[in-house]
């Protein structure tokens, strides 16, 4: 009888236990200003990857901003407090998205010369007879291939990039003249996008399998809790690898996936990066939601070069060139002109050396 009674009690207890997950799965934060603030501060505190690299005292940020928040405050006022808090991170991968505004810190290019004017490129260099292949605008300029790629968000197929590198690598002899001396890849004002696109494009210039970057992921709530570096490699892709002289044009508006692309390209012996430093963006951003429905994102990984340099603040060019005021007024792109000259010079040296 005791067994039966015990059994009955157990069954009734289990029945009562069922459906009570409300008691276990509780909301950590409510939809009020203080909880929204605390939710964001805590999540960023535990997951953001560049506190120490940038020397940011996140606790001080809390102390400075928490008094500005009280329940019942206007939504736009709360948005401004949160935006101010995130602004301190100095990171283009950090945004707060509300229905009425998007917070950002775009100082990574606003504080620097633009060094690019697409109108000049379109009217004075591409002119009328350029080709549009997928997201790429391209043509030959003075026997040098020129490819402009506006955004790594614009996808392309393997066959498209195969076509491009094959086209400008052609050593077709026409009246004893080599058609293409080299290739310029212009990624200025390219704000990033898909890393897959960056890797696919870079793989056409890889002479061999190369260790190009190291990635570290957050693995704990501490500001320095990271995994061991994970090596990233690029190996030759597609049917053809371009091994002629390549110049990659950059400015401060090169960000995120473009930053990755430029850093990868610097690993190849036939590639030179020319222009201004890239804007940066060396961490993969992750997204979160707030109790009031707003969303935000922030960097959660660290990328370093093989030598261990953090690329969060950008990748320096091999040859620093700015567009001069005179050239700008004359409708000339100084950086592109320098790249053309460099490729021609290299070609001449190779030709003469070969002779």
């Amino acid at each position, binding site marked *: 009888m005791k*067994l*039966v*009674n015990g*059994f*009955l009690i157990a*069954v009734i207890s*289990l029945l009562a*236990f*069922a*459906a009570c*997950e409300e008691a*276990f*799965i*509780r*909301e*950590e*934060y409510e*939809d009020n200003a203080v909880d929204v603030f605390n*939710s964001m501060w*805590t*999540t960023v505190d535990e*997951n953001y*990857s560049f506190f120490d690299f940038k020397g940011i005292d996140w606790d001080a940020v809390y102390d400075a901003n928490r008094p500005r928040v009280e329940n019942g405050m206007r939504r736009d006022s709360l948005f401004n407090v949160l935006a101010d808090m995130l602004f301190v991170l100095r990171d283009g991968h950090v945004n707060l998205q509300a229905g009425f505004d998007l917070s950002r810190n775009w100082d990574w290019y606003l504080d620097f010369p633009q060094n690019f004017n697409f109108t000049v490129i379109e009217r004075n260099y591409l002119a009328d007879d350029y080709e549009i292949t997928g997201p790429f605008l391209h043509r030959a300029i003075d026997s040098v291939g020129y490819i402009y790629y506006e955004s790594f968000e614009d996808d392309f197929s393997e066959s498209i990039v195969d076509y491009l590198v094959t086209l400008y690598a052609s050593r077709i002899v026409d009246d004893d003249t080599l058609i293409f001396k080299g290739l310029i890849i212009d990624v200025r004002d390219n704000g990033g996008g898909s890393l897959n696109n960056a890797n696919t494009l870079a793989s056409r210039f890889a002479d061999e399998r190369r260790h190009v970057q190291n*990635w570290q*992921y*957050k*693995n*704990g*709530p501490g500001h320095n*809790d990271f*995994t061991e570096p*994970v*090596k*990233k*490699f690029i190996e030759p892709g597609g049917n053809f690898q371009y091994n002629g002289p390549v110049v990659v044009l950059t400015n401060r508006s090169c960000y995120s996936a473009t930053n990755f692309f430029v850093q990868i390209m610097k690993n190849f012996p036939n590639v030179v990066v020319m222009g201004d430093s890239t804007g940066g963006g060396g961490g*993969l*951003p*992750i*997204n*979160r*939601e*707030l*109790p*009031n*429905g707003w*969303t935000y*994102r922030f960097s*959660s*990984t660290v990328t370093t070069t093989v030598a261990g340099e953090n690329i969060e603040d950008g990748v320096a060019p091999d040859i620093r060139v700015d567009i001069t005021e005179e050239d700008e007024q004359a409708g000339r792109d100084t950086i592109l002109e320098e790249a053309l000259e460099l490729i021609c010079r290299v070609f001449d040296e190779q030709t003469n050396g070969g002779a």
Partner: protein
Amino acid sequence: MNIRSFFVRYWYEKSPQPPFLKGESKNVNSFSRIKTLDNFKNESNSPLEKGGRRGTGKGDLKKLTYYCLVVTITLLSVNPIQAQEKFRSFNIGAGYTLPKFFDRSSSSLRYQGHAVSATGGFHFREDSSTMQHIDLRFDYGQMSAFAFEFADVEYVRVEGNYSYQKRIRDIWQNRLHWFVGGSINSLYNLWIFSNYSNNSVNTSLYVSISPATTLVYSFTLWNRKFRASYSAYLPLLTFAVRPSYGTTRLPGFLDDERDEPVAQFFESGSLTSLNKFFRYSNTWSLEYFLSNRNRLRLTYEWNYLRYSEPRLVQAASHNIVIGTMFNF
């Protein structure tokens, strides 16, 4: 002992003041109370009847309690099917799931939604002393944080269980059969956050070894054969595969260069037990025998999961399924 008598005796022994017998002395002995209850029907002294000798019939709660008790006693008093016939059957079913989860790896918010369910499985009973079940369940639905009006998380849940149990005791005069054994449980959760980019896909897998128990009660009611059962399992040892701390990628797959998915999968998980992983599932089902011995089956399951590594995740679901069991 008559089952009704047993239940009533149990009720009175455990309840110092039965809520439905207002006005009765607290010192009345349990036997007299049983007698009182046994006479409810014949003597029309139900508290539901206004003016009855014992009941006041005034409180809705007391009425509800009384109804529940009567229904329970009725169910327990119908003619039980004594023999546990052997059978092999497969079942298919469809239903509805109400899922909830909280996963700090992805969000500081709690999510809830709606999902459709499909179930299937095989049930074997070669003799009256053992049972084997293989059950599969697939859920697909949409979820959102409580704060939002729109669904922003796609929800996929796949569960597979194998259970082997032996009958250890027949109780309530051989009308209720108690099975105890073990089960292997696997659960796969996939949450896709449509608002997210690099961390949009959150996937996790749990494979557990659990003690399991089942109670089976067969009976006839209104000249129809039914079988009611309750089953539960509680994983003791679990291999859990969860995303890394700061990304939704699995730890073993952070290095893209590796091409050893099996090794990477096992590196992504860890063996854990009740101190870090708690999961509890209980299922109530009612089977109705058709004339050809196939059965219609109504099932309700409540499932709760809590795992604290590397970051706290909690998930629960209510699931109701109606299906058919075919003998073969």
